[in-house]
């Protein structure tokens, strides 16, 4: 069982986490295809938005393509997915991602690459 601990107060908005995420899955460092988003600015502070493993996308999926794995991580079964995009529209944190680089939506699977690259410790992957 894993959990991504987010400490916004430590975030400097460097965006390295997004670059690392995009590069890992799509060889894309533009941040658009990153599975977490850093929003905000230096004056008002930064907020890291990442999947909190809630049930909203699971509930809305019409084909049961979204499910929890043994680590309690919400996963997408690409075989079942019909690309309806409702999970993208309904995700309250806007971290179910659509990109034209991938037919199906995608999301954080708690791989930890963002935490590993975070220079300030704002993101930490912990075993529950």
């Amino acid at each position, binding site marked *: 069982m894993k959990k991504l601990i987010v400490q916004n107060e430590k975030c400097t908005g460097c965006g390295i986490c997004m670059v690392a995420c995009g590069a890992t899955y799509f060889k894309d460092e533009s941040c658009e295809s990153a599975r977490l988003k850093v929003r905000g600015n230096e004056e008002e502070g930064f907020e890291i938005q990442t999947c909190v493993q809630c049930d909203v996308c699971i*509930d*809305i999926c*019409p*084909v049961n393509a979204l499910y929890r794995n043994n680590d309690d991580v919400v996963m997408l079964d690409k075989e079942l997915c*019909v690309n309806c*995009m*409702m999970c993208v*529209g309904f995700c309250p944190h806007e971290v179910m991602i*659509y990109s034209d680089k991938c037919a199906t939506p995608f999301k954080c699977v708690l791989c930890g690459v963002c935490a590993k690259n975070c220079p300030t410790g704002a993101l930490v992957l912990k075993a529950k």
Partner: protein
Amino acid sequence: MLKQKPISEFTYLPAEIDCGYANKIVYCDLDRYEISEKMLPEKMKETFIGGKGFGLKLLWDAVDENTKWDDNDNELIITTGPLSGLTQYPGAGRAILTTLSPLTKLPVDVNTGGYFGPYLKFSGWDGMEIRGKADRDVILFIDGNAGMIRIIDATFVKERDSHILAAFLIEKFASSDEDKKSVAVLSSGRGAEYANIGTINLAFYDAKRNQVRLRQTGRGGMGTVLRNKKILAVVVKYNKINNALNHPADLDTVNRLAIKMHKTVARLNDEDDALRNCGTASIVTLMNENELLPVNNMQYGSHQNAKNMDASILQKKYFKKNMPDGCWYGCSIACTKVVDDFKLKTGPYRGKKVSIDGPEYEILASLGANCGIFQLEAILELNFYCDTYGIDAVSYAVVMAFLMECYERGIINDEFTGEHKLNFGNYREMLNVLHEMAEGRGLGLIAAIGLEGIKQLLIDEYGEDVGFLDDIAMVQSGLEFGEYMSKESLAQQGSYGLTNKGPQHDQCWMISMDIIQNNIPELEDKARALMIFPQFRSMFGLFGLCRLPWNHIIPWHDKDRLQQDDNPIGEQIRDYCSLYEAVTGNKITLEDMMTASERVSTFQRLFNKRMGKGTREFDIIPYRAMGPVTKNEYLHKQDHYDAQLRNEVRIDPDGYGVEEKIEFLRRYRLQRYEELMKAVYRLRQWDERGVPTKEKLERLNLHEPQYLAIIQDDTKQFAEI
């Protein structure tokens, strides 16, 4: 899979969809048990776009002015539009069915959700034309992945009613439980074998609920035509669904527009999002509060017991799983609701627990309030049996409301009703007659004729008062009325009267704009709305989309927002143009879209004219849709009517009795309707007889000799008169 040897089989190489079109139509002749394919001409796409446009054009080419609904030449046509089948955009699971109606004798088209339309298209067909009649019950089966169509002898199938027939066929044609969602079934029920008011159910397997669900085609007697052709069911199977099967010109833009729409829906608050929570049932209380809910054969517009049908009760007590129930992938609006584990108390399935699709607003208004019934349990039972018997619930209810009024007024007696005590509110008798209809006996067999036929029966056989029955029989052009009280809404009267397929609100729904929002106070405003909305709303049927996402995203009760310059109507309509362009690759402006829609509406009016209607005299509606027929109706809203006489008719009501006041009001309201008709005709470019002018046909590129002949013929007849 069924083991029966097919009567005939057709194999084909499934066409790859190109920018929303398969570019092929499958043609099935049941007289000869032959199946063949037709190419879809480019000109047909340019002129008629798809869906409803294709259906009407194919039917036009198949029949002539003498074809009757039960002739072999009449076709049942199922078409899709270029946007049908998008899994990512709300409301794209549409099939449009077209045929000559047994009720109106005119072309009727219905736009229905479910999986059938998308699977038909993914199987390589923009549409399916079925002519002729089989000599025994048959099932048409399309395997879209294998490229095979079979006509199968169905005489071995015992199931007749949609809820068990669809479940049986999905089980038979699916290769596994997981495969059930790949099978869609179009069928009717045993009632449609006797009734002119038969409807068709489109069934699909909801993977989320693990159950079969039904969507109804509704109005016009589609199910009657299906069973007249001896078609037990049409089954289409297709698996491996995704959002790119339409091969849109610009998939990325389609996806982004879809996500934008989903985000909008996700952020609606509970009040705005009533459709998602309760379906269209959410407006029952609003209609009742505004005296727009038909009660007792449209005599009254509200009832104190309507609170028993409030959507919150449905939500708490009956929608047990309380989840958004879309009828196709990607529909975040999810207006279709499901009543779970409903235990039936009557009929052949008494004691069984079933699911019921709905009830929607028009079900509650028709089977409920308009028949004086306010018990949800009774309405749900009626709803279930109408659906599974393949009976159009609204038509059935309008027929019964009329018979109830006739019974209470002594126009028909116990001998006529077969001892059924048809008082308003008697739901037990309402169910009894429905079961009789399914068995083809008793009063059920009379109700099965449809309201126009029953009215004529009472006049011809029983010598009843023509005038009074014309006033209170809520039927026009042969079709029973939709379920909004139009007495106080001139615009809604026009919505019902000035349509192509009879008094329903597919093309125009003015009740909210006219009465609740009061946005179109002057006669010219109403006429303009009656010009614009039918044009615009037809677009959804051409594209192969549901209209509700558009209706829904407009916060129609939020007047302030509508008055903003950058209101969401404009933006959303622009998005529909962008969506069409992203799928088809064809640039379209709002004006182009309106013109295309107007062209098909006009073509349908021409079609009506060709079939012997489509002129002024058929645009008249029964007086009860316009004003109070009886003393009680007048007295129910006496202050309101008196005020109208005083302020608008310039008559002092104090000096007259009720009957005289009814007559004054009647003259005034008929005159207002007449003025509205004239104004609408002028704006629609119709001549004084209600026929589109030559200039209009030329403007819309409907100038082929065969179309011009329809109006020229009329001019000649008019000159002779």
